[in-house]
Structure formats: structure tokens, C-alpha cells
């Protein structure tokens, strides 16, 4: 009985440590894809955002294509499928001065459309726009990327300034 209860305690402790470790290394990533056009109906879910989107992207109508939210681990590459052969590949590197430092790559098949290192304010959103040149034809694709680390500052990994670049 003693061995059994001792083993149970070890297993429970290990599980708790794993869960706590996973939580400690988590970063919430929210990727939203939106189709922007000059005319047409606007998605009711984006109605509240439409003035800001219009000011930012210049289009009048917006349709929500998809939303993905994941809790990703620091220093691990995570790929978000955007459809039509496109994907957003993220590598969260750390926190610095209340900003999430990460590498962002926007891919179209094997083509690398954008490869950048960004410092996004914690909880903030940045946007990638695709197909601006084809504006007259079928509008553009907007990719809204939001990153948030909800943990206390003491538990956040600190990004290195030189090595991450």
C-alpha cells in the first residue's frame, strides 16, 4: 500500500509539474483571416471593426474567412494554415519590455512572401495584407495576428537582443 500511494503521489506531482510547465511556456496566438473588398456586404462580426479596418486597409467590405486560436510554446515553431496554400509560421522568442518578440513568416506554397522579426506589444494586433495590387479584381486578404502573454512578468522568458535576430 505504501508503495502504491507513494507512486501515485509521484505521478500526480509529475502531472502537475508538466501542466504547470506547459502553462508557464504558453503564449496565446490569435490568427484571423479576412477578405477585404471594395464593395459588397460586410460581415456582422466585423461590423464593429470596419471603421478601423477601412482606415487601415482602405477597403469598404470585409468578410470573415477564419479564426484560429492556439496556445503555443515559447521558442517553438507553430504553423497556421490560412487556406489557398498559404500559411503563417510563427516562432515566439520571448518577452522584452512588455512586447512579444517573434519571428513571423508568411508563406504561399514554398514561396516566402514575408520573413520578419517583430516586437508586438503584449495583447496587441498587427496585420498582414496580401494582394493589394489586385485590388481592382478581387480585393485583398488580411491576416490579423494577435499575441498575448497573460502570465506574471516574473515568469516570462526574456528575449535576447542579438541572438534572436
Amino acid at each position, binding site marked *: 500500500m505504501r508503495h502504491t500511494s507513494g507512486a501515485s503521489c509521484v505521478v500526480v506531482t509529475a502531472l502537475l509539474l508538466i501542466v504547470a510547465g506547459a502553462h508557464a511556456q504558453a503564449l496565446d496566438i490569435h490568427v484571423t483571416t479576412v477578405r477585404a473588398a471594395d464593395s459588397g456586404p460586410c460581415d456582422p462580426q466585423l461590423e464593429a471593426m470596419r471603421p478601423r479596418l477601412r482606415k487601415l486597409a482602405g477597403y469598404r467590405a470585409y468578410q470573415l474567412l477564419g479564426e484560429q486560436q492556439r496556445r503555443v510554446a515559447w521558442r517553438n515553431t507553430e504553423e497556421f494554415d490560412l487556406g489557398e496554400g498559404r500559411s503563417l509560421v510563427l516562432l515566439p522568442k520571448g518577452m522584452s*519590455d512588455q512586447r512579444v518578440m517573434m519571428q513571423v513568416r508568411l508563406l504561399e506554397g514554398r514561396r*516566402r512572401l514575408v520573413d520578419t522579426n517583430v516586437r508586438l506589444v503584449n495583447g*496587441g494586433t498587427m496585420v498582414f495584407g496580401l494582394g493589394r495590387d489586385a485590388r481592382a479584381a478581387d480585393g485583398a486578404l488580411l491576416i490579423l495576428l494577435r499575441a498575448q502573454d497573460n502570465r506574471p512578468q516574473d515568469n516570462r522568458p526574456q528575449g535576447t537582443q542579438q541572438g534572436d535576430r
Partner: protein
Amino acid sequence: MTCTDVEQLLGAFVDTELPPPRLLDVARHAATCSACDSAIRELAELRASVAALLESEVRQLDLSGVWPAVNAAIARQAAARPRLTALRGGGAPGATRIWAALMAIAATALLWFRPATQQHPGKPMTIASAGRAARSLNDAGIDRIAGRGITMRREPKTGTMIIWVSGSGGEGAR
């Protein structure tokens, strides 16, 4: 006792201010001297008439309004006393105001010198940085960027950055 002695003691005798032996001496002399007796009687009558005159004048004085006036004056002073006390800074209301002022100064000092540890540990938050924080809800910085046909734009109000990629852009290697 002579008439000269009585003349010098006449006023004190009428006012009965002399010691009893001297009073008896003057009275015994006046009993035997008509001149001194007349002088004593005239002076006594004069004093009596003056006293009567004074008494009649006092009785003619109207003192009925004196006490109401005194009472009114006392009431006015009693009503004015708290205000004067407050103006002088004494008493409970003044003390309350002083404490309130001290507490306000202390609270202001705490606000001024409190480090903004919740926003940036170890860095005091200035008014300028607070303004920047309000404007930079989506602020993003670019350390490095690679690709073709890329243009960047930032919305001034929220700091939201948009990175545009033209349809024909891109690099081959993944």
C-alpha cells in the same frame, strides 16, 4: 476742643468718619457753641440736599433698556464666536481642515513619487509614456524584414501596423 478744631473736623464729623472719642468731643463742643452747631447743621443739610438731588436724578434715569441691550450684545458675541474661532484656526472645524489639507498633500506626494511597477518594474511611468501607452495598443516594431513588394503602414491612433505584400512578391526558398 476749640471752634478752629471743630471747623477742621466738620466734614469728617458730618460723614461720621471720625473715631468715636473725637465724635464725642465735636458733639460736646457743638452743644455749647451755637456757631459750630449751626455750621454742622448747614453742612449736614447741604449733604442731605445733594444726596437727595443725586437720588432724584438717578431715579429719573431710564434703565429699562440696559439689560435687554446687554443680553443682545452677549447673544451677538456668542453667535460670532464659532466663526471667529474657525477663522483663527482654532477649534474642531479648523483642525479638521488642517488634517484634510495634510492628507491631500500626502496623497499628492504618493501619486507623484509612486513608481509605476505594474506597467514597467523599476521604471517610473511619466506622463509622456502614459500617453504613448494609450496610443500604442497595437504598437509593433520591426527588427528585420525580408520579402519582395513589401510596404508598411502604421495607423497613428492605435499604432496598428499593416504589412502589405503585393501578389507578385515573394521569395522562393522556404
